[in-house]
């Protein structure tokens, strides 16, 4: 099976395909929202933003860009290595937030109700064969 370089355009396209295919609107709680995961200190020294858009529980967009993150309802920021450890299932996203390794920006009450949705997304992303 081909593997994809983490956060490359190819990895992002594969993430979009798998999320759209595997997460039904029901599993996504029919949510309409947007989220950015902001990766600081990527191996090439750059920062990258992975942008997700959901409309009525359908994953409508997953895209990657360099530099400053675009606007989104929620932004989760952290070191590249932290996100990589989460993707490799070496670290739980909840534990990363609780220990300050990740930082959430956005309405905490709404985020709390969507935490299971993010867990489901992370589970799907963890299935992508990835080179870090």
């Amino acid at each position: 099976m081909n593997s994809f370089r983490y956060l490359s355009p190819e990895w992002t396209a594969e993430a979009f395909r798998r999320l759209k295919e595997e997460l039904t609107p029901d599993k996504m709680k029919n949510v309409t929202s947007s989220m950015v995961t902001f990766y600081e200190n990527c191996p090439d020294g750059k920062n990258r933003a992975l942008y997700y858009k959901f409309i009525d529980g359908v994953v409508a967009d997953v895209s990657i860009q360099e530099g400053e993150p675009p606007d989104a309802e929620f932004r989760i920021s952290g070191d590249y290595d932290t996100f990589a450890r989460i993707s490799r299932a070496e670290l739980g996203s909840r534990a990363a937030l609780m220990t300050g390794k990740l930082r959430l920006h956005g309405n905490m009450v709404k985020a709390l109700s969507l935490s299971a949705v993010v867990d489901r997304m992370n589970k799907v992303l963890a299935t992508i064969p990835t080179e870090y």
Partner: protein
Amino acid sequence: MSTMQTDPYFIDFPARIQAIQAEMAAQGIDVYLGSRLRTLSWTVDAFCPWRSYVVIPPDGLPTAFTFVIDAARVGHDSWLGEDHVLGYAPMGGQDQITVVSDLISRYLKGGKGVVGIESGMATYLPEGNLTHHEYERFQEAVPSARLVNAHDIVDRLSLVKDEGTINRFRKASCIVDIGHQAVLDAIKDGGYRGMTETEIAGLAAYAMRKAGSEWEWSFTGGNEIASGYRTSFTGGACTPATRRELQPGEPLMVDLHAMFMLGLGDHAHNYLLGPATPRQRWHAKNFVDLVSLCLNTYKPGVSPSSLADEMMLFAEDRGFAEYMVPGFEHGIGLMGDEWRIGLNDGPFPYWTNPDHVYQPSEMLICAMQYACPEEAIGFRYENPILITADGCEPLSRFRLAIEEI
């Protein structure tokens, strides 16, 4: 106050003070100025609802200070007696800064030395850390002394509970169970019709007071009662009772609080007011199964984060993770010691360290919240538990179930 060692509620307060003094000596602290409610309860053994202080010298008995209108009562209730519980008042030479700093000065040689204070922050409003104003005024009053933050001393010593403290909690939980039985007796067979949340809170309070509870101690509104949609606020672990009338077909959350000799009872029990739907029963079974698993999981070596991961995995497998708050505990100790678990050693100052490792004879509230706002249903579980050698002892014994009434 309990001074008989054969009394099941006996606590060796002189030994507690000596333990604090040993820590003070080890850290080079000449005088300890306690101001947090948890410290007052833990050292004075009396309820101190007004701003109070306890001054602990390098040896000998401490002296507590409280608002003069309550000082005689606190002195009566405390093991310290009237000579070591003094009042302060807004008059010359009697304001709290003057009387407390006068005593502190007596323990400082030439006015020099180290004064341990309690500073920090808390989610719990009545925590009682020294305020900025108090800090500045005390520093002015003892200008040659150095004020250092020393609350870790009391936090560390109070972490593992002694038998007298545990027995006070057991008794408070027995009283809470009496309150729950009174609620059940009142609402069953359609008795809930026409009742309001505040009425449920009141009849439980009456039953618990008859059984010896000193008050419904929780700062979150005493007995927390929620019905219908009010059970389902996201993260909604705080529901002071309202004038809302109970309705058939709705959930009812009954979270009762009793206090016995500063030991705290805190147990939540849930109902479905009939007729219940299959979907409501599905939610109820999810919750009861999760609580049962959680109680079976608590043991020495477990941490808040490891337990949360395990519980959320179970919830995800069963398809109800989105209804759970991913936290399963809050701290508890004698009155004033609520919310944070363990020491102030986590990644976020003055919050529970998610990697705190439980050890035998620690106590906490096993707590979880289930909320499905879109279906206006939610449940809460709270129960003081004692970590034992190989598991945990739930102190409230009211049956674990979501009962259909």
